[in-house]
């Protein structure tokens, strides 16, 4: 199981939880499991999210591997200028 930290405004779509646990080995699996477990997250996942894995931010990269001890933080999709 991977513990995923959600940003605050996603709590309402995740049964009021800030930290949720899903079974996932990759970024793609994590997004899929989040959507299945918490359908209220699907609109945000569809709009785009970034993922911080042990402090490194990934914007895409489905197959990025996630270890059970990894720090995983879901973030809005990063944009810049």
């Amino acid at each position, binding site marked *: 199981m991977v513990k995923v930290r959600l*940003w605050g*405004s996603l709590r*309402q779509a995740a049964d009021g939880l800030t930290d949720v646990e899903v079974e996932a080995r990759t970024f793609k699996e994590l997004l899929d499991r989040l959507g299945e477990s918490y359908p209220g997250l699907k609109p945000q996942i569809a709009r785009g999210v970034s993922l*911080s894995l042990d402090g490194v*931010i990934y914007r895409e990269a489905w197959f990025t591997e996630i270890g059970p001890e990894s*720090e995983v*933080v879901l973030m809005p999709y990063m*944009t*810049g*200028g």
Partner: protein
Amino acid sequence: MAFDEYQKRDFKQVGTRVRRPDGVDKVTGRAMYGADATAPGMLVGRILRSPHAHARIKSIDTSAAEALKGVKAVLTGADLPVQDEDFIRDVQDNCMARNKALYDGHAVAAVAAVDAATARAALKLIKVDYEVLPHVTDVDVAIKPGAAVVQDGRTLENVPAGMSENLTSHCEFGHGDPEAGFARADKIIARSFRTAATHQGYIEPHAALANVTSDGKAELWCCTQGQFYVRTLCAAIMGMEASQLRVTASEIGGGFGGKTTVFIEPVALALSRKAGRPVKIVMTRDEVFRATGPTVHTSMDIRIGMTKDGKITAAEAHLRYSGGAFPCGTVDMGAQAAFAAYDLEHVRTYGWNVLTNRPKEAAYRAPGAPQAIYAVESVVDELCQHFGLDPIEVRLKNAAKKGTKSSYGPTFPDIGLVAILEAAKAHPHYSAPLAPGQGRGISCGFWFNFGGNSCVSMNINTDGTVGVTEGNPDIGGSRASISLMAAEELGIDYDRVRTIVADTSSLGYNDVTDGSRVTFAVGLATIKAARDAIRVMRGRAAKIWGIEEEAVDWKDGAAIPAGPNAGKFPPMTLAEIAAVSFETGGPIAGHHEVNVDGAGVSFGVHIVDVEVDKETGATKVLRYTVFQDAGKAVHPSYVEGQMQGGAVQGIGWALNEEYIYGADGRLQNPGFLDYRVPVASDLPMIDTVILEIPNPGHPYGVRGVGETGIVPPLAAISNAVSRSAGIRLSELPMSPPRVLRALGG
């Protein structure tokens, strides 16, 4: 060690200040900018824009314009397809209104004619029947009950029910229990701030030349930060296949984020398709201000608690950003960046996006961060003043560092903020004496940086020179930095490498030049493409020597035997291998395609001295020093230029730049006479101190540098003004009239 990880090395090319490859063309006028493109039979495109801030378009009669001699095409929103997907529909509707004009300057029709005079005359013949609607141009007014609704039905699921329809999205970040933290504070300061919308102020107006042929193929030349993204947007709007639309980016006269989307490009393409001839559109400066993408304007509430010895116990921010008449997510970035410089146990930020009748926001260097950090750093400074504490010592006491749980969630890996603060504290500027009436301010700044999709192709020419093809317009010196990294990796001189920017048919997809990504991400792809070419060259040398490829190494630009068992052969240089490439298997090339992650975040600290003229309210910037962690500075002069440019744009934002709307909802100052950007005579030399703290996610340790520099100036100058004039302003810009009012004048 993974390929992408930093490895310490002694650089020979990287880090040198080589001559810029675009310099001669630019200073001799030979560089081809967007407006320089021409085509046989080219028509002139012009756009009719709404004079109303908010109006329903009841009808558009184009018959008289179409009948005018010399007019070859007239276009309205009805000529473009109905888009199902919100994002593309917003982009298209911003380029050409369909049912409603949503802001002063919104495009409502366009013509293509044989010359500019005919095109202008045709615009006057277009009759638009408007039903003028109530408008709202202020972020705070827009969320009040009874405010005009800019667009209905755009609210996301994350906005609680019952709120203004102009509130389209909400975000929240943070951890801990702020109220518990505030209870431990010796002093809590709560302040409200507002910042004006500003424009990127690039010198080159938008320009596009489109040529759609009768067989459905199209060419588009335009000034943009991302030709591939232009292709994506225009192909969607035009209903074209990507392969049929080739987009070529011109030399660019500034972008800073403002050229990361389209405004006139689909219009030029649609006019060309309708007219059957090439069409060129060049914006006037008035159009650039009224109808491209300025920043959000903001309203913010900040509350910070601190102990008397300078420890921050809790922090909270409420941010309301308006990116104009269409939804945008910039407040998400501001809410994440607001407290990033601090190691906080209790922190929370709340963000709201608000619709107003203003142009659709586009990115501007570190979008969303300068505003939020201005407000936070102002309150931190006020707390320092309250307790009589040194502003840098307080920031050091609370600084985010490796292992800090950031205010936006992740735990920081290696970051350079403490090193930057220490450098600033030790710098002579910080301890230099000030004359009476002068004030010194500091501020921290932060930006995320990111990587993205990048393709590089590298051709080894038979004369031993190297051509690098990349797909990102060069807005900050990337051709030089990419050539330097190619030369470094190949082991040859910089002068032997030439880098060009490819069109969309010549290379795989490349993300836009934004997010401070190019030197980091395209540089990484370049290094890997060079290693690919080296692999090929090692193989050719192995064949020539009759040994295994694994027995050949690459050092100082030449193949060498890997060890004594490989045999005795003199080094075979890149040029020697290239010279016989036809005989040894054919042309030699390397390439790499990747979606890069692992960009390291960037911090900066600025120190500024100012003097406020209490008679005129004018603020003079006397001395300015920028400290920034650049990772490895590939071309230090360009890095310094980015730091200086960011500071200058931030100075303009702090002191003068402002979108001013009248009660009629129309922009009052769409020109450089009334929208005051800093010029050289307004500024001291901006001193720079580059700190090179390697990014562990890049083989040379490179971080992005293009955006962080615009973040600290807003608060640094505001803090300096407060110490110079004894007044704490809470609204930007701190223009002379506003300063005089604060002084009681």
